[in-house]
C-alpha cells in the first residue's frame, strides 16, 4: 500500500470531539456511528482489562478519549449505555491502585459527570468513592475524591437540603469511625464532616454525633480531629460566613456608568440584568432572619457521659499514648463541656493537682482549663485545695512577677465562677499583693479584690471593702450567695425599659391635654371604649401564678424608637402595654416603689412579648445607665471594663492568653516591642511618597482616569503651540467674545452644564 494522501475532510472526520458535537446536535441520525464507537469502547475496554496496570498506548484514540466520549453522550442513548456506569465503577473499584493516574482521574470525572446528568444518583457515587478514599495509597486520588465528594454533597444540598442523602452519608461516616476505632480511616469522616459543618450544610445533631465518636477513637489523628472540631469548628463556621457575606460585592454604579459609555449589546444588557438580580438577591438574603444554628456543644447528646468517657479514656488512663499537647486539647474540651453544661466530674479536680506547678509546661492552659471547669454547682471543698495549691506554688514574693500574676488571675477566674471556694485568710493574704511593686501582680490582685467586693465583701478586711460594699453590708442588701442557690431569672435592665415606657405614657397624656394625676380613670375609660376587658391586676406577693385572661394575656407591643405608638391610631396593638403600664402608674406611690419594683418587672416580662425594637431600646437604656456621666473618667473606664467582662459570652472558651493577660504588664517593653506594637495592624508602607502620588496610585488601581487638570498639564507642548499662536492673532472683539463665553461657561458649570443634576 503506497503512501496515500489524506484529504482534509477525512482528517477532520477522524476526530472524536467533532463526532461528539455532531451527535449532540442530532442523536437519532448518528445512532449507528455512536454504536460503532461504543463497540470501539467495548473492545478497548476488553483490551484494557487484559492488563489494567500496564496501559498500552493504543494509537491515536486512547481509552481515555473513548470514556470521555461515551460519558458525554450517555444521556442521548440510555439503552445502549446501560452497562457503562457499572463498568466504570467496576474498573475504579477493582483496579484503582494500579491504574494510570490520567485514566483514573478521567474515570472519576466521568462518574461525576454521569451523576450531573442524572444517570447515576448521588448515593451510588458516594458509595463508590468512600471505600476508595479510605483505602487508596495515592495522595492525588485521595485529594481528588475528597474534593468530588464534597462538591457532590454541596451541589445536592444547594437548592434545598437533601435529607435522605445527608442521612445516608452520615451513617456511612459514622460507621467508618465506629467500625474500627484504631484505624486512621476515621480521619476522612472527620474531615468531611468538619468541612460540611463549616459550610453550614450539616448543622444537625447527627454530624455532631460523628465527631463525638471520633473523639472517643483510639487513633491519635482521629481524636485530635474530633477534639479540634469541637474547640474550633463553630468559630470557623462564623468566620466563613462573615467572609462570604462581604466577598465579591458587585459595583452596580460602576456597571451602570460603563453601560452608558461602552457600546450597547444584548450580551452586556443581559450581564447588567444578572448583576442587578444578584444584588437584589443578596439584599433579600441579608434581610432574611438569621438561620438559627446551634453550636456543636449544644447539639451534643448526653454531654455528661461524653465528658466522663473522654476524661477516663484519654486523661485518666495511664496507657493512653497521647502527648501533652493532645492531652491539653482534650482537657480543654472536657472542661469546656463541664463549664457549659454544668456537669459534675469530681475526679477531674484531683487530676489537676499534679499539674499546678510553675515548672509544668504550658501551665497557663491548665489554669485556664481549671477555671473553665469551675461552675457554681461544684462543691467548694473540691476546689479549695486547688486554690491553695495555686496560691502556694505561684503567688509568693519569691516567684517571678509573671508567675504570680498568672496565679492570681487564675484564682480570680475560678472564684468568679465559684466564690465559695475561697477562705478568708487566703483571700486577705492575696489581696495584700495589691501593694506589689510589679504592675501585673498589682492589677491581678486588685481584680481579685474588686471581685470579692461584689460577691463576698464580708470576707475582706474592713479597709478593703470600699464604700459601696460597706454600705451594702450595712443595709443587708448584699448577702453572700449560698452553695447551690440560683439567682432569680430576670431580664437585665427591664426596670429601665419599664420606667421609660412609663415616662412615654406620661408625656403622651400631657400632649393630649389630660392631667397626669387623673390618668388612671381616663385610662380605664379609654380602654373600655376600645373594647378591652380590664382585669384587676392582683399583685401576688408570693410570686405565684398570676390570673390573666386567655384572650389578652400576651400582647405584642410594637413600639419603635422613631415612631411612638399613638393609642388613637393603633389601639389594638398597643393598648395591652399601655394598660399594663397604666396600672403600674396606678400603684406608683413614692414610698412603695423600692419593694414593688422587682415584682412589677416580672409582670411586664410575663405579660408582653418584647419585640426586637424593645430589646434595642433596652440595650440603649442600659448603656445610658452604665455610663454614669457624673463619675470621674478613671472610674468610668473601670466600669466599662467590668461591663466588657460581663458581656463575654458564656459559650466562649477561656484561654491561656486571658490568664497570661496581665503578665505582659510585668515586664518593661523595649523600644523594638513598642514599635512593633505601633506598627501592628497597619498596612506595609514601602517607601515614603507624597500623598499626591499615593492618591494617584489608588485612583489608577480603581481604574479611574486622570483629572482634566492633570491632562492639561501633561499635554504635549507642540499641540498647544498652534492654539497659542491663533490666540495672539485674535482681534479685540474676538477676544472679548471668548472671555465672555468663558465666564458664561463657568456659570453654567462646564461645557455640558450641570442643569440636570
Amino acid at each position, binding site marked *: *500500500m503506497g503512501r496515500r494522501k489524506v484529504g482534509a475532510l477525512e482528517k477532520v472526520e477522524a476526530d472524536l470531539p467533532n*463526532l461528539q458535537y455532531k451527535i449532540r446536535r442530532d442523536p437519532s441520525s448518528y*445512532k*449507528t456511528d455512536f454504536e460503532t464507537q461504543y463497540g*470501539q469502547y467495548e473492545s478497548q475496554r*476488553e483490551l484494557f482489562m*487484559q492488563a489494567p496496570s500496564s496501559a498500552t*498506548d*493504543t494509537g491515536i484514540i486512547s481509552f481515555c478519549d473513548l470514556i470521555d466520549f461515551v460519558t458525554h453522550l450517555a444521556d442521548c442513548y440510555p439503552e445502549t449505555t446501560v452497562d457503562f456506569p457499572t463498568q466504570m465503577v467496576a474498573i475504579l473499584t477493582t483496579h484503582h491502585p494500579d491504574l494510570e493516574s490520567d485514566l483514573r482521574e478521567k474515570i472519576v470525572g466521568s462518574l461525576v459527570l454521569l451523576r450531573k446528568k442524572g444517570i447515576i444518583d448521588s448515593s451510588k457515587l458516594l458509595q463508590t468513592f468512600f471505600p476508595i478514599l479510605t483505602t487508596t495509597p495515592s495522595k492525588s486520588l485521595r485529594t481528588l475524591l475528597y474534593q468530588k465528594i464534597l462538591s457532590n454533597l454541596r451541589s445536592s444540598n444547594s437548592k434545598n437540603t437533601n435529607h435522605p442523602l445527608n442521612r445516608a452519608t452520615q451513617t456511612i461516616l459514622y460507621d467508618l469511625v465506629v467500625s474500627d476505632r484504631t484505624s486512621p480511616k476515621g480521619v476522612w469522616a472527620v474531615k468531611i464532616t468538619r468541612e460540611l459543618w463549616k459550610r453550614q450544610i450539616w448543622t444537625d445533631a447527627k454530624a455532631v454525633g460523628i465527631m463525638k465518636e471520633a473523639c472517643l477513637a483510639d487513633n491519635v489523628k482521629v481524636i485530635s480531629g474530633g477534639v479540634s472540631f469541637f474547640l474550633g469548628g463553630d468559630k470557623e463556621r462564623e468566620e466563613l460566613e462573615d467572609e462570604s457575606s462581604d466577598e465579591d460585592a458587585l459595583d452596580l454604579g460602576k456597571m451602570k456608568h460603563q453601560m452608558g459609555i461602552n457600546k450597547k449589546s444584548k450580551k452586556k444588557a443581559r450581564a447588567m440584568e444578572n448583576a442587578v438580580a444578584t444584588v437584589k438577591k443578596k439584599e433579600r438574603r441579608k434581610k432574611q432572619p438569621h438561620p438559627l444554628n446551634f453550636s456543636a456543644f449544644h447539639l451534643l447528646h448526653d454531654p455528661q457521659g461524653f465528658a466522663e468517657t473522654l476524661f477516663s479514656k484519654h486523661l485518666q488512663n495511664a496507657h493512653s499514648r497521647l502527648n501533652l499537647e493532645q492531652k491539653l486539647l482534650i482537657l480543654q474540651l472536657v472542661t469546656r463541656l463541664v463549664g457549659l453544661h454544668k456537669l459534675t466530674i469530681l475526679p477531674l479536680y484531683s487530676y489537676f493537682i499534679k499539674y499546678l506547678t510553675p515548672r509544668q509546661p504550658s501551665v497557663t492552659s491548665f489554669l485556664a482549663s481549671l477555671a473553665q471547669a469551675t461552675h457554681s454547682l461544684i462543691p467548694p471543698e473540691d476546689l479549695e485545695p486547688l486554690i491553695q495549691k495555686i496560691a502556694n506554688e505561684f503567688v509568693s514574693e519569691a516567684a517571678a512577677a509573671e508567675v504570680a500574676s498568672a496565679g492570681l488571675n487564675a484564682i480570680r477566674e475560678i472564684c468568679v465562677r465559684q466564690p465559695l471556694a475561697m477562705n478568708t485568710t487566703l483571700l486577705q493574704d492575696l489581696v495584700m499583693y495589691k501593694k506589689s511593686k510589679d504592675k501585673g501582680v498589682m492589677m491581678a490582685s486588685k481584680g481579685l479584690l474588686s471581685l470579692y467586693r461584689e460577691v463576698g465583701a464580708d470576707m475582706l478586711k474592713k479597709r478593703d471593702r470600699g464604700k459601696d460594699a460597706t454600705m451594702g453590708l450595712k443595709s443587708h442588701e448584699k448577702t453572700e450567695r449560698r452553695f447551690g442557690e440560683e439567682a432569680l431569672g430576670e431580664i437585665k435592665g427591664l426596670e429601665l425599659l419599664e420606667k421609660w415606657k412609663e415616662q412615654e405614657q406620661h408625656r403622651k397624656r400631657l400632649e393630649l391635654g389630660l392631667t397626669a394625676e387623673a390618668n388612671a380613670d381616663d385610662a380605664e375609660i379609654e380602654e373600655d371604649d376600645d373594647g378591652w376587658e380590664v382585669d384587676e391586676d392582683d399583685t401576688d406577693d408570693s410570686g405565684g401564678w398570676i390570673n390573666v385572661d386567655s384572650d389578652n394575656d400576651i400582647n405584642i407591643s410594637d413600639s419603635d424608637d422613631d415612631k411612638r405608638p399613638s393609642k388613637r391610631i393603633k389601639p389594638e396593638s398597643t393598648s395591652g402595654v399601655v394598660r399594663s403600664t397604666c396600672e403600674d402608674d396606678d400603684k406608683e406611690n413614692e414610698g412603695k416603689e423600692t419593694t414593688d419594683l422587682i415584682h412589677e418587672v416580672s409582670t411586664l416580662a410575663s405579660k408582653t412579648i418584647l419585640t426586637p425594637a424593645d430589646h434595642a431600646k433596652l440595650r440603649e437604656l442600659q448603656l445610658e445607665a452604665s455610663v454614669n456621666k457624673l463619675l470621674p473618667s478613671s472610674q468610668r473606664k473601670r466600669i466599662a471594663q467590668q461591663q466588657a467582662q460581663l458581656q463575654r459570652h458564656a459559650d466562649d472558651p477561656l484561654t491561656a492568653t486571658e490568664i497570661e493577660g496581665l503578665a505582659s504588664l510585668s515586664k518593661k517593653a523595649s523600644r523594638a516591642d513598642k514599635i512593633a506594637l505601633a506598627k501592628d495592624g497597619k498596612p506595609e508602607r514601602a517607601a515614603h511618597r507624597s500623598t499626591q502620588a499615593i492618591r494617584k496610585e489608588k485612583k489608577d488601581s480603581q481604574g479611574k482616569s486622570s483629572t482634566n487638570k492633570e491632562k492639561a498639564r501633561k499635554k504635549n507642548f507642540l499641540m498647544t503651540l498652534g492654539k497659542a499662536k491663533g490666540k495672539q492673532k485674535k482681534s479685540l472683539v474676538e477676544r472679548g467674545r471668548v472671555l465672555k463665553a468663558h465666564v458664561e461657561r463657568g456659570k453654567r458649570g462646564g461645557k455640558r452644564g450641570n442643569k440636570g443634576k
Partner: protein
Amino acid sequence: MGSSAKKKKDKKKDFQKPKLKVGKPRPKPTNFTDTSFKAKTIALSRQSLTTVTPSANTQFTHHLSLLTSRSDNQRRESLSYLTSSIAPHQKDLPQPVAVLLPKLLPLTLDGSNGVRAQLVKLLQNLPPEDVRDHMEKISMYIRAGITHLATDIRDTALEILEWTLDIDGKELVSCPGGWIKTLKTILTVLAWNEDAKLWGWTSSRAIVGRSGSKSLPRTLGLLAALLRAGLVVRPSPDTLEAQLHRFPLWNVEYHMPPCQSNTYGYLNLFGSAKDQDSQGYENINDRRRIFRNLFEGRVARGVSAARREGGDVGRAAAAVAKALGEGLNDDGLRDE
C-alpha cells in the same frame, strides 16, 4: 511629552536602513549567530567501542524494543527490519511468537499508514501454527480496529481479519469471545444491528469517515468467510477408504492426547467468570444455536437489503447468503 517622543524615535529605528560605508565592515544582521568559536574536544553522549558487530539476535531484540518509539519512521523501519529478518513461515524465530505478538498487535491501531501496512506484511510472515494459540488476543485487536473512527485503521483491521481467517478460521470462531463479539462488531459496522421496527427502506447509514462504499463489499466478503468458518462443517480429511486402511483403529484421533494448547480452556478453570458474549464456542452446534438465536434475522434482513443494491455490494451479499445457506442447511451437507 518626553515619553511620546521617545516612542516615536524607537518606532523610527525599526524602519531605518543601515547605512553602508566604504571601507567599513558590513553591519551584522540582527539574527546573526557567532560561529567563530573552536572546540578542542567533541563529547559524544554515547560511544560504542566494540569492534564486533552486534549479532542478528541482539539486533532483532533491539528493533523489537523500538516498536514503541515515538517516531513513525522509526517504527516503520524497525518493522521492516523485523520483516526482512524473518523468512516467510520460518520455523525457528529469534524470539518466540508469544513475545512478538504483544509488541506487534498494538500497532494495529497505529496512526501511521506506513506502519500498519508494514505490520500486515510482518504478520503474514509469521508461522501459522504458532499464531493459532494467540487467536483470542488477535481477535480483540481486530475488533478494536474494525470499529475504529479512522477509515484506514478499519481497512488494516479487515486485512488482518482476512489473514486470520486464512490461517485458521475455525480457531478464530471458537476462541473466547471470537464468535458472538466478532459477529456483533461486524454487524455494527455494517449497520445491520438495528431493530426490526426501525428497518425501513432507508437506513441511517451515513456513517462518518466512510469513504465511498469501497470497504463495504470487502466487509461483506469477510462476513461470508467468517460465517463459513463458524457454521459450515468441514468434511474430515480422512476418507472412508483411508479409515478402512487403518482398519482396527477407528477414530484414533479422539483417543489420542490432544494436540492443541489449552485443551480444557472451555472449562474456564482459572479465568474470571465470563458472560455469554465472551465465552468460546468450540462446538459447531453451539455456534449455530447462538447464530440462530441472535443474528439470523438481522443478517437475513441485511443480506436481502444489500442484494437489492446490486453491484459489488450485491455480489458480496450473495456470497454471504450462500455461506448462510451452506451453514444452516444441514441436509445439503449430508448430500455432499
